[in-house]
């Protein structure tokens, strides 16, 4: 297999509604990534598009709709999609285009317009539930998270105060992010605990927002990386795994499929002791407890230990294991597939020393990003390393 380097990344503003169409957002994110890498459209061999359910955009087969904005006309192009897992799965697909030797330069674009659907993006989520077992009960997607959060809290005896610390950290971290939708330098644990109860134990400030946005990333074969940079960032490992769709047939307190994906990625990266060998992480944080759940799934700590590390400040940007230094989904926003911007682009910006106000102190060399999706079943993991 070829070694694969990251040479450029871009990201648009994240907001509940953006004026731009999906094509226009894809174009803007792609142009920024090309500017970062110093390449033109003709330098791109192949393109991967990541975009989540068509039901949000309301355009069926929207992968085809987005081609023109993704520098893909006249090129091999494929759309990949596995719900919330797409934000890291799209770059995994980009990586394998280059790792396989099929492409020397592969562009990955991730786009989402969630604001299109009415009365609310959660209306589109109705279509993901099982039509026989679940839909007659008129479910709301937040129920899934509420049930998983309650199980996780109960098994480990975790207090809501400790979970709220994650929302506070990430919304504060997002203050340094120009794209951020919900950055808040003054938010407190009490604000989270006093926010509206949506579906207990989930409260309003436990949740990331629906967003419009796009992100882009450019991979290249190591053999030609010298053309673009002297200080390359490499893909050290990738992993992905999916569990059964029968989510009521397993204990939700631990995401075993995340651990499976993480082990796959760490094996390729030669990582034996994740907490020691990984300098920082961007676990998927659509809800505050999910960051903790995923830290444990990513084997960055023991089961039930993530809230303790959070309380002790270990996961702050200047802590021993910074978690979501980008501001995450909670702070920057959650345009599903386009969260590639926080989960993989941010790894690259941090490792390349380009994260500006968000830069982790010290000398980070290894970062892991992760996304999660479908009905509590999909995990996608990517490890980046400075060369």
């Amino acid at each position, binding site marked *: 297999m070829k070694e694969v380097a990251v040479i450029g*990344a*871009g*990201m648009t*503003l*994240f*907001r509940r*509604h*953006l*004026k*731009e169409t999906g094509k226009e*957002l894809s174009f*803007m*994110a792609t142009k*920024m990534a090309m500017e*970062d890498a110093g390449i033109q459209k003709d330098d791109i061999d192949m393109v991967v598009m990541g975009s989540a359910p068509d039901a949000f955009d*309301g355009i069926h087969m929207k992968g085809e709709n987005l081609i023109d904005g993704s520098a893909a006309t006249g090129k091999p192009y494929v759309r990949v999609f596995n719900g919330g897992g797409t934000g890291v799965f799209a770059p995994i697909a980009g990586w394998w285009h280059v790792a396989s030797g099929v492409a020397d330069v592969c562009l990955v674009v991730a786009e989402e317009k969630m*604001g299109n659907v009415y*009365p*609310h993006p*959660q*209306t589109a989520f*109705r279509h993901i539930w099982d039509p*026989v*077992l679940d839909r*007659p*009960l*008129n*479910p*709301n997607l*937040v*129920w899934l998270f*509420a*049930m*998983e959060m*309650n*199980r996780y809290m*109960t098994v480990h005896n975790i207090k809501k105060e400790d979970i709220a610390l994650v929302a506070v950290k990430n919304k504060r971290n997002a203050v340094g992010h*120009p*794209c951020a939708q919900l950055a808040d330098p003054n938010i407190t644990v009490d604000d989270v605990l006093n926010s509206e*109860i*949506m*579906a*207990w*134990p989930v409260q309003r400030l436990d949740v990331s927002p629906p967003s*419009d946005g796009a992100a882009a990333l450019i991979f290249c074969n190591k053999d030609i990386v010298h053309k673009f*940079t*002297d*200080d390359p960032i490499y893909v050290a490992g990738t992993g992905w795994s999916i569990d059964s769709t*029968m989510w*009521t*047939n*397993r*204990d*939700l307190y631990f995401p075993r499929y995340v651990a499976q994906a993480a082990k796959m990625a760490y094996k390729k990266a030669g990582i034996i002791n994740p907490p020691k060998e990984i300098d920082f992480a961007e676990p998927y944080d659509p809800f505050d407890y999910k960051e903790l759940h995923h830290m444990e799934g990513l084997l960055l700590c023991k089961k039930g230990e993530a809230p303790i590390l959070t309380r002790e400040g270990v996961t702050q940007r200047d802590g021993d294991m910074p978690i979501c230094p980008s501001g995450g989904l909670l702070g920057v926003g959650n345009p599903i597939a386009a969260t590639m911007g926080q989960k993989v682009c941010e790894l690259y*910006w941090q490792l390349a*020393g*380009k*994260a*500006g*106000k968000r830069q982790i102190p010290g000398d980070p060399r290894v970062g892991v990003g992760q996304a999660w999706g479908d009905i509590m079943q999909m995990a996608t993991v990517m490890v980046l390393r400075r060369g």
Partner: protein
Amino acid sequence: MEKEKKSWPPYAPGTHVKESDIREKKLTYTWWEPEVQYSWSLGHAMSKFIQGLKTGKIYGIHCKRCKRVIVPPRMFCEYCFGPTDEWVELKDTGVIETFSISYLDPDARRIEEPILVGVVSIDGASPKHGFMHYFGEMTKDEIKIGMKVKAVWKPENEREGSITDIKYFKPLKGGDD
């Protein structure tokens, strides 16, 4: 060739639109309301399960190779990937594995009276095997994980072959079993 290490993203392209801009038609947009209906065959396993509910019974299915009694049932076992074996009539009691107290309707509109909803593992099935359902005859302060519960069925003449032929699960009291 060392590029200048400026902060990335260097700018945030995109034009913020407020919900009020859409309501007040300050944004140029178009609108579409699809009308579409679906009909799904329930297949081999779920047809039997749903027909069972109509007669007041919860059916699971046995996978002999995995020694697993599976509910909701399927015609194959996803672990050993063989066909499942015989049908098993389960009890209509179980345990609350997890729950939520929901103030959201399916479109995220707020509701006054919360819905108690969660996962019930069904007695007679393998551990952690169950399905999602409502809870009733208990308050939001009484519901807890580990609580033993029993199905409350719709009257037979009102059942239509749906998961909602069970109205909800109520606390299991002595003598209910």
